[in-house]
């Protein structure tokens, strides 16, 4: 069972690492907006403006 004396400190190290990563994410604002980024990936913004987009008037 002496392996636990190695594994548990290792686990503690990973715990510290995950808490650090989580704190970083919170500070970086990763949890501030949970709605917009999910859709943003679907919308690409590198389209060239179509030249045909000018106003026209119909009666």
């Amino acid at each position: 069972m002496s392996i636990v004396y190695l594994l548990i400190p290792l686990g503690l190290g990973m715990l510290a690492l995950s808490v650090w990563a989580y704190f970083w994410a919170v500070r970086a604002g990763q949890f501030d907006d949970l709605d917009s980024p999910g859709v943003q990936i679907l919308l690409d913004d590198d389209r060239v403006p179509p030249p045909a987009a000018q106003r026209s008037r119909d009666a």
Partner: protein
Amino acid sequence: MTTPAASPSCYHCGGSLPAAGSLSVLVEGAARAVCCAGCQAAATLILSQGLARYYDFRQAAAPAAAPGMRDWSAFDRESAQRRYSHERTDGEREVSLQIEGLHCAACAWLIENSLSRIAGLTHVHVNAGTARAELRYDPRRAALSRLLARIQELGFMPLPLCFTGGLAEETAERRTALKRLGVAGFGMMQLSTYAVSLYAGLMQGISADLQQFLRFVSLLVATPVVLYAARPFFVSAWQSLRARRPGMDVPVALSVGAAYVWSVVATLRGSGAVYFDSVVMFTFFLLLGRYVEMSLRHRAGMQHDALARLLPHSVLRISGVRAERVTPDELRAGERVRVLPGERVAADGRIASGSTEVDESLLTGEAAPRVRRCGDALIAGTLNLTGAVEMVVTRTGQDSTLASVSRLLSHAGASRPRVADLADRIAAWFVGGVLLLAAAVALYWLQADASRAFPTVLAVLVVTCPCALSLATPVALAAATARLARAGVLVTRGRALERLAGADRILFDKTGTLTRGEPRLERVTLPGSRLPEERCLAVAAALEGHSGHPLARAFAHLTPAAGVTDVRTVAGRGLEALLAGTRYRIGRLDYVLEGCAASPAQAAAGIEPGHTRIALGDESGLLAQFDLADTLRADAPETIRRLTALGLTPAIASGDRPGPVAQAARQLGELAAHADLSAADKLALVERLRREGHRIVMVGDGVNDAPVLAAADVSVAIASGTDLAKVSADLVLLGAGLSGLNCAVATSRRLMRIIRENLAWAVLYNLTAVPLAASGAVEPWMAALGMSGSSLLVVLNALRLLGRRAAPPMPELAHPPHPVHA
């Protein structure tokens, strides 16, 4: 020239198209119809920037873009910059905006992408969840007014927030809460593995060294949880003790603190039981409850400063002969300002010269304009209708009438359901009882079996944590609010849902509520055929462009003839103006005919029921007559049918004439209808019904029914209504239709049922668990598990309110194409 594609609604805002005359935009080669010049400008801008995908991805139609740009230049002044933005060390400025009309992530994307093309803007983030935007820009290269104007051009309304406002505080509070929750969560996950090993060790044997090692590791993990994550409980318990009013946090702090200290001592001495696992689990679940409650509070807070938006963004200040645009914050008592027709008054004041008519409906509820002459008082936030006046400022900012109304409203907005207050009151008694009980149990066990005394007291403290009790209502409310938000219904007051569940009568305003509120041109008759129809329409559009009357909007989509001068408005009758040397009048028939030299009575007869007729004439007689009609919202009949099925009795209470009201009532299935009601009549109607014991829901657009809305048990406003309606109503329907109303009624009833279930469960649980714990049959870890399980059950029960991911609310796009005249 292309023909509009066969779409029955406006490409940009989804609103209905005018019957006569139409505008369009070219979308990838095909012309798509839009309803007005404002929408055309917004759509053209969006398309020309290559952002057409907005239209593919948006989840709700855009708000109808208002034609006519605001003057944002006051925001470039040094004082405004200081107030609304914050200078960073690198010379850039940061500003936070609230954006009206922002519905979905596609709107946020559109604004971000369009703004990021402006040189000088270095950072932009739009949060679709909160409708807030954060901009960072270089003031030497981009003016704030330019950025604000661009957002308005896209069809949204930006409202700069004071930089000291709650946004930064809220974000900081939320982040801290998330960190504490995270620490407790990680700690709980890690500790549970050690706890399982230790309990297994108790049963099947474990070496003393390993046990001691596991206890030390547990101590290591539990310490940050208690000292950092559980800190708010200690602070709040200490504060409530100092105020001599022990709150719910006292037993919490006591059990967390005592169990931790006891366990630390036991670990260091190497004997006795440890309760690290219970401590951490307890902390995590309590923090989770707090987090849910905090999110709810923040969401409610967003409505808070809405009344302040009624103030204009800028005001014309007169000093000597010089006139300059300043922000209302810069005004001081004693200064002179000029208020133009169509502007809102920026501060309380007294008219120094000129006279005008003022719409004070937001304060008095009286829709009819009031005449204000030299020496009369003007109130901040009211709308100047007809004449330009100069006034001397008497009160500004927080001293103004508007600010005190706003304070009253925000106070009312803090109200919670009665059930929630009840739970809080019970909880306060509960705390005292628990502390007494714990002391009694401690006394008993110290005499009976001293070694069992501490674990038993701890078990009692933990098991009785009023967690389920205090979670029962806020979580259910949060779930119901979220469910309704998804269906396009904004809940501004939690208490309203409770009353909505018990309502039995529902009154609808007609114009703008059951109907679209947008008059549409249905028919043009030319009695004398003296001018071609097109010219008549152009003249009418030019004249009505100067009118604030609701009917004038029927002409907003037409191209007006240029060169209107000398406009004179006669309230309630019409207006006249000079155009290309001819004096035209538009309005009621008698008013138009009065202006004619000869009075040839050649008016066309036979007006259809439900139509409103206005006339256009010049000095030599009548030129044209326009029949306008306001059509029912597409989802109105279905909504009425479903509400009736839910047991509510619908009725119409309208200020409109009996003809159109009766017609609408007939179309909706022979509804009871009250026509020709003034605001006071409506108020009397609501009060009479309430005296008869009915519980009233009032649905309006808020133009002249703000006091009626306030008098009803529950008020509902349509989002396209006025600003004030949004503030004073309990529920706001955000979608373009009424269908959210069914959902609101159904959800409120389920909410009340679930709150009752939760409270019943919490009481039942405590009645069984407390005797067991006091008798010493429950170990602290079982108590923590039981408490957590109970809270979890309450939360899961409340989450049933969220339901399955509902389909988006029925958009008002699916109505049949309108006949196109002209």
